[in-house]
């Protein structure tokens, strides 16, 4: 079962970290909030947070700019 990111299915691989997922998706914007299965993840924990098969990831980009 793949993971979902903001409601869309994305590829998952064993050991995939949140930081790697952000890189894969090119989610480079600094002002964002990430929750996995409804649980918020602090910014400094992206590299040590390992995603599990089927995780629901919500990435809220804030509205800077414009």
């Amino acid at each position, binding site marked *: 079962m793949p993971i979902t990111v903001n409601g869309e299915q994305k590829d998952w691989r064993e050991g995939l970290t949140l930081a790697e997922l952000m890189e894969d998706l090119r989610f480079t914007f600094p002002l964002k909030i990430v929750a996995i299965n409804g649980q918020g993840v602090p910014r400094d924990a992206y590299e040590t947070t390992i995603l599990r098969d089927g995780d629901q990831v919500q*990435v809220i980009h804030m509205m800077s700019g414009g």
Partner: protein
Amino acid sequence: MIPVVIDGQSTEIAPGATILEAARSLGIEIPTLCHEDSLEPAGTCRICSVEITVDGRSRIVPACKYSLEEPARISTNSARAAHARDGILRNMLSRWPNVQVLRDLASRFGVEEPETKHPARNHNEHACILCGLCVRICGEGLWHHALAFHGKGSDRHVAMVTDDGASPCVGCGACAAVCPSGAITMLDDPNHPADGPRIRRAGMVITSEMLLLDKLQCRMREVGTGHLVEIMNDYDLLPVHNFRFGSHPDAEKIASHHFKARYFTQGVADGCGLGCDMACAKAVDDFVLKTGPDKGKSVIVDGPEYETLAGCGANLGNFDPECIIELNYYCDHYGIDTISFGTLTAFVMECFANGILDLERTGGLDLRFGNGQAALELLHQMARGEGFGLVAGQGTRRMKAIFAAEYGADPAFLQDIAMEAKGMEYSEYVTKESLAQQGGYGIALKGAQHDEAWLIFMDMVNKQIPTFEDKAEALHYFPMWRTWFGLNGLCKLPWNDVEPADNAQQAEPHKVPLHTQGYCDFFAGMTGKEVTPADLILQSERVYNFQRIFNLKMGFGRRKHDSIPYRSMGPVTQEEYLSRQDRYDSQLREELGLDTASMNLSEKRAALRKLREQRYESLLDAVYKRRGWTPDGVPTEETCRRLGIHKVEGLMDLIAPHQQK
């Protein structure tokens, strides 16, 4: 993590944390006088002295400045620590016996004023205690350097810098806000606010966030809005070749780090808003111009900001930083908006690429994508009112008519690719995949200007507003909120280009509720009238609806005027469709149940266009309903009465013919 014990309590802290931070994490309060979280620790006053023991060796250190790199045992109240702290406090009391913050500390620690009196004794209860916070917030914090220490020994004091070329005080009040003794107060505020300190407290929230968090967030102080170039390129939102595409491999050449390293003058206040600590307006000093009437002159260029980099850069296929800086300079010099120039020139370049224009019609200007020098010459011609500049200078809307009438171009194609709404050129975001942002541009009262509603991330990336009603709610709230900044003469950027550290934990983080409350405090502090966030929206709604009706009076302000070019809804050309084929095909399959495998490209493009145009119309329906407008986009009589603008003479007569019977 490093284990530390403070006053018998154990904890683990990240390497590099100060003793003060570690103590706070345990709820242990260490007194400070010269410390401000948003500034680099100075360790000047030493009132935070504590005893630290590492490897069996003890010594006294300032808690605010000492970084923990190895396991340690710390005492804030050992005999040795207390002796150090109390001695410092006694010395200060002997000099400034009546300063309240010192008397409070004396009372807390049971310290009595010594019998020996300081030779420079000052009985003033608001005496300056030489902590230096004001000097540091003005210099390190705001880059103004208007304050400095003067004199030596007992004559040492803080005063304005009066050297030639020194920054003048701009009256921002940051020094007064951080002063612990009340030595600096704001006495002469020409705006006569109802509650000045309340305004400064609200302002200091932003100051503190800028100094602490900006370097981790948008880096507005380093590169201004230019950081958005690389972000928009990553998210496929950077306009390239007249909004046909959303990214380009060469975008890296105009990324913000190049401007920071090679062009931007750093570390000075920008003068855009006096005392603004965001200081996002960047400048290029000593730029030698290569073209135009000032050729060879060394000038200061104000910018470039994101919109200029995207509009005069990527959207023209021009990835030469110095050419963009020169376009920026001459747009400013001639009084031409860089966004309008960028977008209209991108339109011209696409017409050139399609044979609608050629060298003969442009008077020899080779206006192919990527030719920044030709864009510069076009700009000079526009300013001189010569050659093809006379045509382009009339703007995109008029060029459409001219190209159709005089060059036989297909009016429908021109309409599709000319990025203007209500006659105003689009600002620099690709909106094809964000319906809400299409509405943000299309419904905006003054034309395709993004500052009423910038919803791309909420809509396209976060998927936060999936239904038409969700989008309509966002297209109600955010345009009204952004209008409020205009009504009050405020810049929008401090609202959400820096955010509180705990913004993510708020109920509606995208509204940045802590900052919204700060604006309520600002309004109440200025006027003396208490307001809620909902009151601010209502203030805007009155003006916004009045403006919509003013548009109606001037022959605009109806549904047909909110139409947008198809380029901003979807792919006009085959190559645009192919560049995002997966996305478009999947929308056709999922939303229309079409078998895209059996369709050719023309069929798919036609089906997608029909779908997207319908969705835009449905969005207009939902937004008009949410705003209390008729299906033709005119405020209803009921809305005008609710907002109290029905009393304006003639207003109800103006909208009467447009009401639904």
